């Protein structure tokens, strides 16, 4: 344990090494570390923000999807109702048209029957006259028997 000049020289060396570290070693690396820490912190914050945005977007897309589903369901019911309506309308129109056709056919048939009756009437008188002529084998005065003939015509 002999204290000597070595102590002074070691203290000087120590001082120089401390000065060197304080001046040249510590600050640059400290800076680099701090900049990197900031970069990492920023990156983490950005990631957090991105995650949040993603959550929002997912929620929004779910909302949009649900809305669309609702709307499409509504449209579907509307379309169904409309189709039914169209079918009903078509049925009604067809019925009306059919009625009309039936009516007109009936009218025509009636008319035709009337006409046939008319012709028949016309011919009946003639046939009757001819028959009578044949029965009587003599001329019958058409004018004299007009009243009787017209009465006969009415009976038909």
């Amino acid at each position, binding site marked *: 344990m002999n*204290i000597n000049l070595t102590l002074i020289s070691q203290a000087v060396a120590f001082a120089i090494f401390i000065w060197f570290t304080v001046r040249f*070693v510590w600050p640059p690396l400290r800076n680099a570390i701090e900049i990197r820490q900031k970069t990492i912190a920023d990156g983490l914050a950005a990631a957090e923000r991105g995650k949040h945005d993603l959550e929002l977007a997912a929620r929004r897309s779910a909302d949009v999807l649900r809305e669309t589903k609702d709307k499409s369901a509504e449209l579907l019911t509307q379309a169904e109702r409309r189709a039914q309506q169209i079918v009903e309308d078509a049925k009604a129109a067809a019925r009306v048209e059919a009625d009309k056709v039936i009516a007109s056919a009936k009218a025509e048939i009636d008319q035709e029957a009337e006409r046939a009756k008319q012709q028949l009437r016309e011919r009946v008188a003639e046939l009757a006259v001819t028959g009578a002529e044949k029965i009587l084998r003599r001329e019958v005065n058409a004018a004299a028997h007009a009243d009787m003939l017209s009465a006969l015509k009415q009976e038909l």
Partner: protein
Amino acid sequence: MTAGAELTPTSYITHHLSFMQKSVGTGDFWVLHVDTIVTSVILGILAFGFLWWVVRGATAGVPNKRQAFVELAIEFIDDQVKGIFHGDRHAFVAPAALTVFVWVLLMNAMDFLPVDIMAKILGAMGLHEWRMVPTADVNTTFALALAVWFLMIFYSVKVKGLGGWIHELFCSPFGSNPLLWPANFLLNIIEYVSKPLSHSLRLYGNMYAGEIIFLLLGLWAATGLAGTVFGAILGAGWAIFHILIVVLQAFIFMMLTVVYLAMAHESH
């Protein structure tokens, strides 16, 4: 080991514990321990040169392994300092702590070098009597502790002012009553004396004892082959245990430095 015939345990140990001395004046004080100075300065230049080399190429992006290693050391020191010192630690205290830790660690680590092999190699280079462990020289540990001691007083005065510092010498820890001044002052003087003593002697004692035990284990080799093997096994065991001591003592020395400097910054 200059002459094998007259080798006794005492001469062996004395040889290994002799400094390479160089007298630069008259009297016991004007002596330099060349081995201590050269070893410690070379270690310091290697360590801080390495740090400087890494730091010069430091990037804020993805660090390479070398830079990551240095950053690991710096972050470790910085964390320790952060817990103790509350102020602008980057200005001085943290880098000073890094200096102390790295330098003391490397000087302590010289203890791992096998004493006899190193003595042979250095002897072949013409350097007889060369002690490899600078921290086993009380001059080194005292130099460091005294430097810290002066820094402590410097920061006390700088932070509190000369008046504040003197006021603290007389008025803490018991109180500012004039009757308590002598007691306060006495306690502060004891504290100021004991701090550098315990600071330096703790490191010196541990390293010196470690060295002695290596030498004593080396003595087994004098008892023959069995003794040599036995001594080697014990030496390996002690070396493994010594890894803990080397790192722990460097760490303790660094922590005490930070604590003392932090105390100097705080007023009571």
